């Protein structure tokens, strides 16, 4: 595991379960009959494709019914190169991966930016299109397919029989599973897990979500192509049949059955459906006294029933059988991360000049101007609907201003994307808590430090990122400690009370090592003592040179804390100044308490 020790020094239950599974895998080709070895081969091949879908659909929230097309590209590429051109299967593998990668890059670049349902519809469409291409191209042998695909040879060892293929297939599957697990347990993996529901948040901490989605999409396609290559050389024959649209639907069903809570869900889903299909194929035609794909009825009913009960698949149910070992607190001995150079106190930091934003006919922010100096706490207050959160979104690049200028340390940022503004040292919290609920507090906070690491997906798959990862997690742990949640480091963020979730949001923003911290109602849902300690923390941070822009409704909290106030009403600036002056301003009193007549 990743440096976190397992409690008590005993071997943990999940490791026992994993060990038993590995023992079974090793023993299987020696004890099982040819029929079952072949079945295991099909399970491994399906698990590879399903693994890609678990990452793509379950984790990143992108759905594809077209993975069979990538399997087909992988299988046909190697089949043509090894039969017609008599080249080495390894060349076939390389060519298949390159071709699939390019195809996925092209299709992905077009579809992953679009809203959720376009991708699955287009995956069905290209799956059908490619199926008919496979079936009609002369060079691919039309509907008859390609015969006589040679076996793979590794250093003189020919992977001829089903039992030999078993070794190759399951080594590939296990390596891919471990690679996927490594990926999820890393800087990139945290960002991937935020893609599904938390794209805006991820962008606000510097993640290029569109690019990351594309990476996951291509990765899933490459796993499918690998499965296709293994399939072609195991079966020694390729025809269009296995790449029809139903195959793509069934891969997705496997991912749903297994669930996305763990990469092992791919093995569970592939095993359950592959065995069920085999069994139903014997049973059902006898029942209906004619042949046909009757198992689709059972699959369909099974899926609807499963989704009515749970949307997490079977893996959590399997996981419940095995008690989970808790990791110990993260060791804080890691070297501290380099910090950003901070501007001198009193330097101009943020300048808003005539910022304007409209939603249809509603003017949310109307030609608003204010300035903020480095090292101050500036409060932005106003009645509900005054435009405070919109102003926040304009400064952080989540929304784009219709007019006006916003300068950060003298540089115009109003046209920049959220992740570019984050890079300049602006971090924020969200009014509606924006955490990845299923992920532990520590990892949620570590997303904040995303821009302070640099290792990408490939490094994390190969575990070259461990030193950096230790430092990032130690930094995250330090910030969690700082907001007073050291005891909840490993709890799922979604399980905390709302007030504490807001503190997690602050810790995440702090992990970004910001120059300017924007807090959107940080005290909402906190108890009196918690508010006091939050105020103390914010003062400490200011004294360390951090500048804070604060939206808050709790006037006691704001008045005792901020250096200056900007009061907004109906998108406009009503007043500006020191708290005690603003409190006496008649316009402010009227806005808050209503007119006197």
């Amino acid at each position, binding site marked *: 595991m990743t440096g976190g020790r397992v409690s008590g020094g005993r071997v943990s239950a999940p490791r026992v379960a994993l060990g038993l599974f590995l023992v079974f895998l090793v023993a299987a080709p020696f004890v099982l009959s040819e029929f079952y070895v072949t079945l295991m081969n099909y399970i491994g091949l399906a698990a590879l494709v399903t693994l890609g879908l678990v990452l793509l*659909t379950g984790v990143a*929230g992108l*759905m594809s*019914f077209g993975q069979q097309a990538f399997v087909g590209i992988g299988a046909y590429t190697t089949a043509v190169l090894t039969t017609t051109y008599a080249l080495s299967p390894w060349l076939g593998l390389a060519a298949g991966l390159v071709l699939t990668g390019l195809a996925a890059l092209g*299709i992905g*670049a*077009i*579809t992953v*930016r*679009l*809203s*959720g*349902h*376009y991708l*699955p*519809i*287009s995956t*069905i*469409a*290209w799956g*059908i*299109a*490619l199926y*008919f*291409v496979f079936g*009609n191209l002369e060079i691919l042998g039309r509907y008859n397919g390609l015969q006589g695909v040679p076996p793979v040879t590794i250093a003189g060892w020919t992977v001829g029989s089903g039992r030999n293929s078993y070794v190759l297939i399951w080594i590939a599957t296990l390596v891919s599973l471990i690679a996927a697990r490594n990926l999820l347990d890393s800087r990139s993996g945290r960002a991937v897990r935020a893609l*599904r*529901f*938390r*794209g*805006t948040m991820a*962008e606000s901490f510097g993640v290029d*979500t569109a690019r990351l989605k594309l990476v996951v999409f291509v990765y899933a396609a490459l796993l499918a192509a690998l499965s296709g290559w293994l399939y072609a050389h195991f079966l020694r024959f390729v025809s269009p049949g296995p790449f029809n*649209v139903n195959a793509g*639907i069934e891969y*997705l*069903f496997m991912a*749903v059955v297994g669930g996305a809570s763990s990469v092992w869900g791919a093995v569970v889903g592939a095993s359950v459906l592959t065995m069920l299909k085999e069994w139903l194929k014997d049973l059902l035609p006898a029942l*209906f006294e*004619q042949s*046909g*794909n*009757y*198992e*689709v*009825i059972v*699959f*369909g*009913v*099974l*899926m*609807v029933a499963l*989704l*009515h009960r749970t*949307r997490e698949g079977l893996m959590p149910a399997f996981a419940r059988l095995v008690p989970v070992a808790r990791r110990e607190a993260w060791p804080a001995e890691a070297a501290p991360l380099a910090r950003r150079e901070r501007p001198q106190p009193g330097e101009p930091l943020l300048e808003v000049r005539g910022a304007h934003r409209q939603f249809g006919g509603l003017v949310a922010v109307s030609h608003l101007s204010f300035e903020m100096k480095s090292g101050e706490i500036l409060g932005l207050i106003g009645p509900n609907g005054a435009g405070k959160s919109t102003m926040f979104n304009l400064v952080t690049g989540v929304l784009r201003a219709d007019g006006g200028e916003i300068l950060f340390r003298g540089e115009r940022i109003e046209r920049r994307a959220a992740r570019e503004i984050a890079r300049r040292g602006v971090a924020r919290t969200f009014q509606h808590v924006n955490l990845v*609920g299923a992920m532990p507090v520590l990892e949620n906070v570590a997303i904040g430090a995303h821009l302070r690491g640099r290792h990408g997906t490939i490094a994390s798959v190969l575990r070259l990122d461990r030193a950096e990862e230790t430092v990032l997690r130690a930094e995250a742990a330090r910030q969690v400690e700082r907001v007073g949640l050291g005891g909840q480091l490993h709890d799922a963020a*979604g399980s905390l009370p709302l007030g504490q979730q807001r503190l997690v949001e602050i810790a995440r923003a702090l992990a970004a090592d910001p120059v300017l911290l924007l807090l959107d109602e940080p005290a909402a849902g906190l108890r009196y003592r918690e508010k006091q300690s939050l105020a103390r923390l914010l003062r400490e941070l200011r004294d360390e040179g951090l500048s804070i822009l604060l939206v808050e409704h709790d006037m006691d909290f704001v008045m005792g804390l901020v250096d200056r106030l900007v009061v907004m009403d109906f998108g406009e600036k009503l007043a500006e100044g020191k708290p005690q002056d603003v409190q006496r301003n008649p316009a402010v009193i009227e806005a808050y308490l209503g007119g006197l007549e």
Partner: protein
Amino acid sequence: MTADIVAWLAQDGITNGAIYALLALALLLVFAVTRVIFVPQGEFIAYAALSLALMESGRVPGTVYILLGGGALAAAMEIARAVREHALSRLPRILALYVLLPVVIAAIVWWAVPRKLDQWLQILLVLAMVVPLGPIMYRIAYQPLASASVLVLFIVSMAVHYVLMGLSLVFFGGEGLRSRPFSDAHFKVGMLDVSAQSLWVVFASMVLIGALWLLFERSIYGKALRATAVNRIGARLVGIPANLMGQLSFLLASFIGAVSGILISPITTIYYDTGFIIGLKGFIGAILGGMASYPLAAAGALAVGLLESFSSFWASAYKESIVFTLIIPVLAWLSLRSRHVEEEDE
């Protein structure tokens, strides 16, 4: 390519395009009201077409068993809910709607089949068998998941498609069937030979589109559907029942699907799994129209029909590939226009 081939291909394309346009409208309607990507729409086409062909040959179509079984299952779910909510007064209505009505329809079909009624009466019976499947399907598969994400609902659609396609094979068998044309007449328009069946298809589609427009503009149910499509929560707050709107949109979709099947079955041989591909072409049409506007979706569907017809002349084997690849450039264009990050709640 001579002028009469062009004219003939255009006629073929417009005929199919009219069907795709109907389907595109239904798909758009269901998506707007329920957020369901309604893949099983295609099954209604196959069910209606095959039921009609079987009745014409004097056999009782298996659709009656699907109707009876689906009704019984939906009734069981409704009764379980009524018991849970201590609302037993709902029982008579549940039984009447989900048990008695299917039984009556089935009885009429059994009575009518050996008597070889007039074609129009048979068509009415087919509609009576197939159309109730829409609301029943909504009740069984979708209503319990009404609040789920678009992606979960999409998976449910695929699962329902699987079930219906499998049942289609069980009850209709693997053979392709064709029903009798409404009329064998042909007209000479200049040098073009127009079949009356094509005219029927185009005419019926236009009438149906007009009727839908009237429904949405003039009736309270149509307005409620539109309100639900614009803002689901807002519609519920003003007292529009979400489940009823879901069932109503599925009823319209199954009706449109069944009519499409009846219209198309005299000109195309329909197999148990043909509906899926036809339904998807409706989807391509809807996407060409940007998945938002009804007139654009209809225009897109017509374009699909024409493209299909002309590509079957140039490259018949790649007809499907060409049609289904068409959405890639369209999606590329949509993608260039979109900038926002999509957000769904957990």
